[in-house]
């Protein structure tokens, strides 16, 4: 009997493999990176990206796409560096209502049957505007506890790795293990039959968007913890990076096929791609290009693997 891997496991193989190869290559080129300090330096910036990628993943699980994540994370970063530091209560209130707005966007998209791309595009202007109102010029300061959290030095493993593992585990529990996660993925997979079984699709979509908002808030806070100050354009790149991270991690655009562990791995891979080039002494100009190339290679590999799998499955 042939061992048949589940498609979920297969989905994780390529991202895990590409991360391993990339890490091995980095270590080979620069053995000094293989240290507590070196790893932290390499992967530090991956934490907020991983959180943003998980946020995007929730939206993609219900077959939508969020083009406002970058602007939203910037907005959160601005709130964190201003209100959350100076008036923690007001700051918390702002962030909680922002999550509420996210859930509301999900409700509106579902009820009016709107294209998520355009609605979130509009929202990205709104978040960017609010961020500019708060911080017209770069500034602000990270609250001390955030700074402490992001620069903590846990034993054995650097913070970046500990945080990535925690993010992956928490997201895995929510998306893959809980009833709510099953419902959200069910909406992505077969909305009609979920509805026929008596569930509220609006509530599921609102929950997915709300969770996306929650993780995006975490991303913004983590980002400020690393950079110590904020500006209104600090995370605009996250919109595209988060989509790329989900896809790299084995997620798909439609059908509710997502993988939280893969998404975190995808975010790590994207972050490492840049460092890898600099170790190769290739100009950092090509960092973004390398991310694009990795994306294309991984998608091509996946297509190949799917074909082989299909051929094998046929009797």
């Amino acid at each position, binding site marked *: 009997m042939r061992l*048949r891997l*589940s*498609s*979920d496991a297969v989905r994780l193989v390529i991202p895990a493999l590409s991360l391993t190869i990339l890490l091995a290559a980095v270590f080979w080129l620069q053995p000094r990176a293989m240290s507590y300090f070196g790893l932290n330096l390499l992967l530090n910036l991956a934490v907020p990206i991983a959180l943003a990628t998980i946020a995007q993943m929730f939206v993609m699980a219900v077959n939508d796409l969020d083009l406002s994540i970058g602007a939203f994370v910037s907005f959160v970063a601005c709130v964190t560096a201003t209100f959350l530091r100076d008036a923690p209560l007001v700051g918390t209130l702002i962030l909680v209502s922002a999550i509420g707005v996210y859930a509301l966007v999900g409700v509106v998209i579902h009820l009016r049957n709107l294209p998520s791309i355009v609605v979130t595009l509009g929202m990205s202007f709104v978040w960017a505007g609010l961020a500019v109102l708060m911080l017209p010029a770069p500034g602000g300061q990270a609250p001390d506890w955030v700074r402490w959290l992001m620069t903590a030095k846990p034993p054995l493993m650097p913070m970046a790795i500990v945080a990535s593992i925690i993010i992956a585990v928490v997201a895995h529990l929510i998306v893959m*293990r809980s*009833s709510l996660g*099953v*419902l959200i*993925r*069910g909406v*992505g*997979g*077969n909305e009609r*039959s*979920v509805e*026929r*079984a*008596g*569930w509220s699709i609006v509530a599921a979509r609102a929950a997915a968007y709300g969770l996306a908002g929650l993780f995006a808030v975490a991303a913004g806070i983590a980002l400020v913890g690393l950079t110590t100050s904020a500006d209104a354009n600090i995370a605009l790149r996250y919109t595209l990076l988060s989509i790329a991270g989900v896809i790299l991690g084995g997620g798909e655009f439609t*059908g*509710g*096929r997502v993988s939280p562990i893969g998404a975190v791995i995808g975010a790590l891979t994207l972050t490492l791609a840049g460092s890898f080039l600099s170790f190769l002494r290739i100009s950092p100009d090509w960092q973004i290009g390398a991310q694009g190339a990795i994306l294309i290679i991984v998608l091509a590999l996946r297509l190949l693997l799917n074909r082989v799998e299909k051929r094998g*499955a046929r009797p």
Partner: protein
Amino acid sequence: MAKDLTKAVIEIGGARVSFGAVKALDGVTLAVMPGECIGLVGHNGAGKSTIVNVINGGLTPQEGTVASDGERLDRYSITIARARGVRCVFQELSLSPNLSIVENTRIMHRELGGFGWRGRAAHVIEKSLDQVFPNHGISSSQTVGDLSIAERQMVEIAMAFSDAGIAPRLVILDEPTSSLDASLARQMLDHVRRFVAAGGSVIFISHILHEILETSDRIVVMKDGRVVAERPAAEFDHHSLVEAMGSVAREDALHRSARELAAAPVVIRHQAAGLAFTARQGEIVGLAGLAGHGQTDLLLALHASQSNSWWPRSDSLVTFVAGDRRLNGVFELWSILRNFSIASLGDLSRLSLVGTADEAARGGEWKRRIDIRTPDMDNAILSLSGGNQQKVLFARALATRAPVILMDDPMRGVDVGTKQEVYEIIRQEAAKGRTFIWYSTEMDEVRLCDRVYVFRERVITAELAGDAVTEANIITASFEVAAA
């Protein structure tokens, strides 16, 4: 299942449902008693799926009553049906392919929540799978998308029989064995008998007649939205069942005069599993059999083999008339004229600029020829009735120069007057040498054809020509009569 055994689980009284001009149900009364398996048979358009939809609460009849356990239910719905233990296995997949079997069980049974639901859901579905298909070899942690079609079907069936708080009382099985092999089908039929013996009820739809004959207690035969025969299964045999499904009386009433076309040149051919397909110049070739048995696939394959998705062809061999207008026929934002002209723009344009005067003239000509009822061809296509939209699609195909016209059951839901007009045009065009390849679910249309291929389980199983194109022959070929 300690309910009263003398009261029907579900009783439908005098149900009438019509979709536009089509009467899908024309006064159907059907009572499902506890502890019985009802076999439901009928050819296309008999009303089987409609009555199933009424029973599972998905469709409210325009007239008629629904009662359960002697209690009349005025507001019957899917939720109430589920709460009363009505379960349904559809031909289309109702599971989420991205979820595991356990997770699908969670979705299907809302009452399974709380901490540790995975264990409980696994227990529920595994128990049911073990009961229905002993030694099934399916692990409940597998993702549904990874299962073979047969395994998915098995999970669907087991899901319908599973019990997570609300016990199933009436299970509707719509062609459940279509993708199961003989031994799995046997296991399922045995389980149906066990379930019925324990006091459950089953409505069983199948095109394999011996399954119906040996599993059912009672057989209901439907035709044209009515129940035409209802007797204990023991009083039927293959022959009488086929006979009951057809109507012997009207035979040959509509039959065209036989034409001799054997000498005409072959214009298109196709070879897949089963008999080879050929069509000759000027011929009207019918594709018959139960709906969804591969007829549309043949049309799509013929179309794909003759078209190029990268470069336009002005001399295309085939053109296509859609049956599902919404899905692959009508362009909803456009006017009637644009919908009409889209397939023949090559002939209507110079230097790739559309000649609007030519277009309007051609449109006006066809409006007269097939009598599209609209004051202005520039009106929106959706302002037309369904029948007239269909005429536009016909005009679109006929106005091209393609010698072969593929028709994907285009007359579904079209009124009788329009049908007669279109039949006449088809006859004229065929006489001029055009070939029609016509998939139809309506017997009257199939009998207009010179030659008919009958499909069963995605394969051409019979070829009937001339006087052999009869309802009895088509029904016999559509249903698997011989014992497997």
